């Protein structure tokens, strides 16, 4: 069945990129430098270049269903090489935000819940705390992976490289009020 072009999705996503430097992704010429440079491309169901094309073409469902932007390693290799000066990494972040915001992402992806867990610990404590991070999402997923984590974790524990108590910042109340001035807490708390 044939599709037709809609451009609202492209505009929505663009609007999520206010502070990102670089050119807008509609300037993409599809040269593939990003996807050639991407260390994770092989594991993505669409290459970053294809995702850009799909966003520009308004193929919203396919984009949100894809794992591409959750697999972005944030290595910025694509961004610095793009001949059109597009910040592809920032675009990936934008898509992640869009997907969490609409809470629409492919079943079985770890990325989203990890991000949320991570974010929550920060806004609650001002610091990250590795131990609660692992379980908070791994339980949702394969037991095997969990044990592998544990194996590492215990070793680290022995070496005294894992904290036992969650750290907190002192002026936590200010900190939380500060965050409230940026986003209503509902989003993450």
């Amino acid at each position, binding site marked *: 069945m044939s599709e037709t072009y809609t451009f609202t999705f492209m505009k929505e996503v663009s609007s999520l990129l206010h502070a990102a430097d670089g050119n807008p992704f509609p300037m993409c010429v599809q040269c593939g430098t990003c996807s050639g440079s991407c260390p*994770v491309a*092989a594991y993505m169901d669409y290459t970053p270049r294809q995702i850009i094309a799909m966003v520009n073409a308004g193929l919203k469902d396919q984009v949100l269903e894809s794992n591409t932007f959750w697999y972005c390693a944030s290595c910025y290799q694509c961004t610095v090489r793009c001949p059109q000066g597009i910040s592809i990494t920032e675009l990936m972040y934008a898509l992640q935000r869009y997907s969490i915001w609409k809470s629409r992402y492919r079943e079985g992806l770890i990325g989203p819940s990890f991000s949320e867990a*991570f974010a929550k610990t920060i806004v609650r404590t001002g610091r990250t705390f590795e131990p609660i991070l692992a379980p908070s999402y791994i339980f949702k997923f394969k037991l095997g992976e969990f044990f592998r984590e544990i194996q590492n974790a215990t070793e680290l524990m022995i070496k005294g*490289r*894992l904290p036992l108590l969650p750290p907190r910042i002192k002026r936590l109340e200010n900190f939380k009020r*500060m965050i409230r001035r940026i*986003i209503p807490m509902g989003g993450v708390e």
Partner: protein
Amino acid sequence: MKEYAYFPGCSLEKLAVSYHTSALETTRKLGVKLKELEDWNCCGSTTYFHIDELLAYTLTARNLAIAEKTGLDVVAPCSACFKNMYFTAAHMKGDPDLAEHINFALEEDDLHFSGDIRVRHLLEMFAQDIGPDEIKSKITHPLEGMRIAPYYGCQILRPRRDHEEIENPRYFEDLLSAIGATPIEYSLKTRCCGGSLIISSRTAALTMVRNLLQCARDQGADVIATACPMCQVNLECYQQSVNQEFGTDFSIPVLYFTQLVGLALGIPKNKLGIGKELVSAMPVLAAR
């Protein structure tokens, strides 16, 4: 005596505690003072950008504002923290509206960031601010014959766009030569280790770790030197997993460059947190 505002970042509290201690030891020996920021918060790493861009900048801006009060250049040992600080500062300088909004939030903590602060990575501080010559002049136990793979990783370099520098930087090599070691040439020195993926897409991350270890070993590296806790944990803690996954037999110690500099400066191993690594460095360091 040169002084820097020092933002350790969450990982250095425990996970990368040896980076922290070795950083403090070596800088003291080199006559540089690291003044830890009071009540700093997590920089949000990259994951925060997955939730809210503005908030991600704000988290970092708080630390920058605290640092700015000291009037010193701020230095971060973790590449993720560094990248966040470097670009938050840059964006806020370049975009008054962004700065205004963020400063509005910072008021809640009686803070304000005006934008004039120099953000440095700990490695840049050693390799460029202090400089190889200065360091060379202070070393007592040169790491002769030690073949070290300098691993830059991503966010210490990118997304800055000064191409020649970021695609083929040399300053890590120069630093290693300065402490008497032999930096090895290998083409993946600036490639990603997959740090931020190890949780969310394990296979991808492990492959990336594999490729790196492979490439380093092929060029005959005894040790991999890192400048980022994420990279260190990834390359080291997951060697076992890699071996299980790919049936390889890697056991390459991965040390922080500060630990190596420390050794060359004659600082006792325990003071450098050596021994806390999962892949023991002892075989390599035995002689020293």
